[in-house]
């Protein structure tokens, strides 16, 4: 019998991270009295999936005023970047919006979900600290977010909702610390499929990173029946437990240890599980990540998880140029990946327990720079899942009119819904009390509507 079993390996791996949440259900003690926890332990699993469209998605070409004066305003502003009216797929929102709405033809894959009520849109969301009109913005009579139109700052604000300190935790991280307090394996509460991100950063328990191909294995150290590898593996692991004074050495040893446990633990669960039946769209990195999310959700019982936060990302949305060439492919990828994920959730039986939502750096200018658009502000977003009151468009569709009532300047549309309201709606669904949500999102207090109603 091999002296160095998987169990021994895990014992070694876990030695340095006891108390960091990877081992032992309920290790994190303390009195748990908050509403979130009380509800969470009642047994229902709930997960949020943040789909980040990196670079600033041009949401104003995603859903478009489909007819009449509203379409003409849009078409005039967009010039040759406008989607032709005849190409738009007509949507029939459950509650009448002021104008007819069309879906971009390259997002056709989302139409069935919209029609069957598991997908909706939240119109014109953006970083706002307090409500205000375009005129208020121009007059600077309201407090404005810092560094509007900068990629990294706006992404950070979207995903942190804590407008002052750059190093503070993301709203996903803060919510996870609150709601998953008594959860075992807390290091699997937040999982990123695309590396570090602001939304999950700064939790008491770092997010786990895995990629869409699954857990990697350590070459030369991953064969537990090979006696030959044993001394090498043992030396390598023992070395991770040495005392390190330098913070970079220490952090590296910790990360390597987490990776070891992940590759062994999660890898084993995923291997046992096998592949999904639902076909994964090819050449679509977002779909590949979402496929791994579905697999991870389906093995969550192995780790006794009842609340999870997933982060996936698709890049390429900074369409300053070649927008007409780039945008259709990007839209198709979003739509096909999300439609696939909806199906995959049905396959694994979690369609009622998972809500997916999009985030992006910012919207883009209504105006064109010749062959693309520049950094804007307000933006339309997608929410998906059975808990979504789908088939509807929530919030106010802005006038897509250059120098119109919603334009701060040169086609940068002022948001009519704040990201805080968008987040609050999801956090309430997740089980946080109104009081907890208020505390978690500092600028929510400045807005009357604390729940946008797209979830129930």
């Amino acid at each position, binding site marked *: 019998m091999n002296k160095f079993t998987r169990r021994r390996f895990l014992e070694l791996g876990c030695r340095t991270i006891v108390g960091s949440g990877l081992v032992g259900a309920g290790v994190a003690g303390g009195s748990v009295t908050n509403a979130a926890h009380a509800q969470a332990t009642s047994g229902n699993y709930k997960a949020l999936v943040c789909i980040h469209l990196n670079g600033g998605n041009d949401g104003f070409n995603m859903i478009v005023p489909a007819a009449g004066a509203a379409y003409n305003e849009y078409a005039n502003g967009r010039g040759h970047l406008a989607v032709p009216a005849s190409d738009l797929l007509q949507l029939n929102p459950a509650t009448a919006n002021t104008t007819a709405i069309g879906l971009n033809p390259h997002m056709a894959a989302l139409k069935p979900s919209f029609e069957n009520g598991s997908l909706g849109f939240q119109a014109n969301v953006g970083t706002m600290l307090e409500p205000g009109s375009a005129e208020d913005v121009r007059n600077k009579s309201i407090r404005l977010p810092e560094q509007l139109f900068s990629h990294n700052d706006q992404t950070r604000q979207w995903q942190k909702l804590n407008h002052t300190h750059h190093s503070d935790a993301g709203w996903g991280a803060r919510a996870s610390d609150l709601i998953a307090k008594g959860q075992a394996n807390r290091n699997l509460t937040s999982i990123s499929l695309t*590396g570090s991100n602001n939304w999950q950063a700064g939790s008491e328990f770092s997010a786990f990173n895995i990629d869409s191909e699954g857990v*990697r294995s350590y070459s030369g150290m991953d064969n537990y029946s090979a006696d030959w590898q044993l001394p090498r593996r043992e030396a390598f692991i023992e070395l991770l437990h040495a005392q390190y004074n330098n913070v970079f050495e*220490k952090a590296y040893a910790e990360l390597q240890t987490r990776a070891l446990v992940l590759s062994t633990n999660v890898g084993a669960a995923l291997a046992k599980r096998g592949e999904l039946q639902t076909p994964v769209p090819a050449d679509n990195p977002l779909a590949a990540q979402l496929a791994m999310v579905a697999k991870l959700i389906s093995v969550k019982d192995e780790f006794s998880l009842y609340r999870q936060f997933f982060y996936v990302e698709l890049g390429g949305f900074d369409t300053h140029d070649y927008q007409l060439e780039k945008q259709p492919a990007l839209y198709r990828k979003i739509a096909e990946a999300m439609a696939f994920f909806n199906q995959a959730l049905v396959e694994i039986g979690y369609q009622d327990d998972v809500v997916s939502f999009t985030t992006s750096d910012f919207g883009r200018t209504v105006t064109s720079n010749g062959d693309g658009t520049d950094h804007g502000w307000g933006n339309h977003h997608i929410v998906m899942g059975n808990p979504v009151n789908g088939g509807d468009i929530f919030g106010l569709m802005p006038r897509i009119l250059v120098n119109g009532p919603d334009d701060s300047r040169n086609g940068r549309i002022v948001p009519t819904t704040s990201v805080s309201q968008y987040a609050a709606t999801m956090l309430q669904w997740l089980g946080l009390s109104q009081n907890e949500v208020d505390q978690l999102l500092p600028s929510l207090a400045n807005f009357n509507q604390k729940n946008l109603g797209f979830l129930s």
Partner: protein
Amino acid sequence: MITSMLMERMNRLRLNNRVRIQKITTGVQALAVCLLLAACSGGGDSDLYDENGIETGSVSSGNKVSNTGVPQLGAALPSPVDDDYAAARFLQRATFGPTLSDIAHLRQLGYTAWIAEQMQKPATFLLPVTREHNPPRWAEHVNSWLINSTTADDQLRQRVAFALSQFFVVSDQNGLGDQQAALANYYDILVANSFGNFRDLMEQVTLSPIMGDYLSMKGNQKPDTEKGIRPDENYARELLQLFSIGLVQLELDGTVVLDDNDVPVATYDQQVVEAFAHVFTGWHFKDVENWNYPKVKDWYAPMQAYQDKHDQGEKTLLNGAVLPAGQSAEKDLEDALDNIFNHPNVAPFFAQHMIRQLVTSNPSSAYIARVATAFNNDGSGIRGNIAAVVAATLLDDEALNGYRQNPQTFGKLREPLIRLTSLWRAFDARLINSKFTYGWLRNRFNQAPLQAPSVFNFFSPSFSQSGVIRDMNLVSPEFQIHDESSIIELTSAMLAHSIWQNTESVSDADLALIDITGLMLLDGQREALFELLGKLTLAKPPSAGLLTQANKLLDARKNASSETRTEEMLFLFISSPEAAVQR
């Protein structure tokens, strides 16, 4: 063949940029004199920065700053080198990895003379090596970059160029994948200007068609009010935010300036971005025949101005400087780049980048101020002399002694690429260009040259790894590309490169083969072996913990071949947490 192409390339650079070359030479010569005469040893006065000089220099007066005194290039003349470990530490910062011969040579010369010698070496360019494969293979520039970074004699220049490539970022990840040679040509702009002037470098970067394509300045045109078209803001915004001054006002020492409400003071607003967007109109490929759908695409020559596409309106730039209406595209561009170059933020912004790239993630503000001061004035009145910035960065007392002054926090996580080149350099890797292929590197290392995911580089300077680093309010940029997934890939690659790729019997000539015969000579002499491995892979003696494990593993392998024992030791050392850190 290579030599003749290199000459051709150098002649071309010279022809294109006669004035620039002259400036570089002057800059390096001035610095070399400064280094050799020990003029730099003067410490003391840290208030050398003349704000008035900078402001009066804005817009029209070029890059000359009134001479305000002797630059501060380190507290004391930091030669000689204490021991081999000190040499190895320095070489971790200044090269792509220490070798035994470099350690010996550095000890012989001392730090300053070594830097002076390096700065005089002829530049090794990337384009000729990239072009050896015609047609280029997938990500050919990655292969040629690995070859140059590992084998080139002008190591300091190569290392600085790599640091610059993470400042003036372009990437093949957003549509430039087929332009391997032109990407190499872009990299050569950085190589050529590694010891040149920041102002010249900024201009050559701005006019590179690769950058023009990457940040869509190429083809940017004046407003067309009828069609509702306004200039593209992409290059204007990122030039300001990432390539020069940053978003918020900085003190000379990098401290963020706050307003009365403790909010950082922005360096510019949207109107300024729009003004610069108007400046950068009217540029396209050289001799382009069709503005919207060019067939003739010269990816090598600097972009050319087309006056009829240039906006000639008045433009209000940084600090209220006004470019009058009616200027040519070239004049607007020159004036606008001067306006940026003379902003007081450039020095601390660039200094922080270079220190974080070469030396340590969390420099003291005094260290930043010293390097920024060298940017503002290299000692001979020249602003923006990158050679002076490099010397100040590497020769600073904090760089040389931080490892013992602040052992807990000094240093940085080493970049994955540099861990690989270090292994190859230390053990004399054979890189056979005809077969050598590492186009896959990015997928396994989360890093490969000119392949950042976006203009924001591989990692953010403010990234802070959760846990002890975040708790102490420190940053650890390189940790952003290390996670539970990539660290396994990296460790596996280390194993493959140390254990499976060191003998002639390995048929994979497409991968690098290292030579461990030197280590094998020490089989049976454990202390000597550990000392040598310490120098080459850790830049310090191994820790007690590493020694314990190394001894145990050697005991376990006592019946194995000496080659196997050596391989195991090499892997254990290079995969250890202490080898992951530059100190």
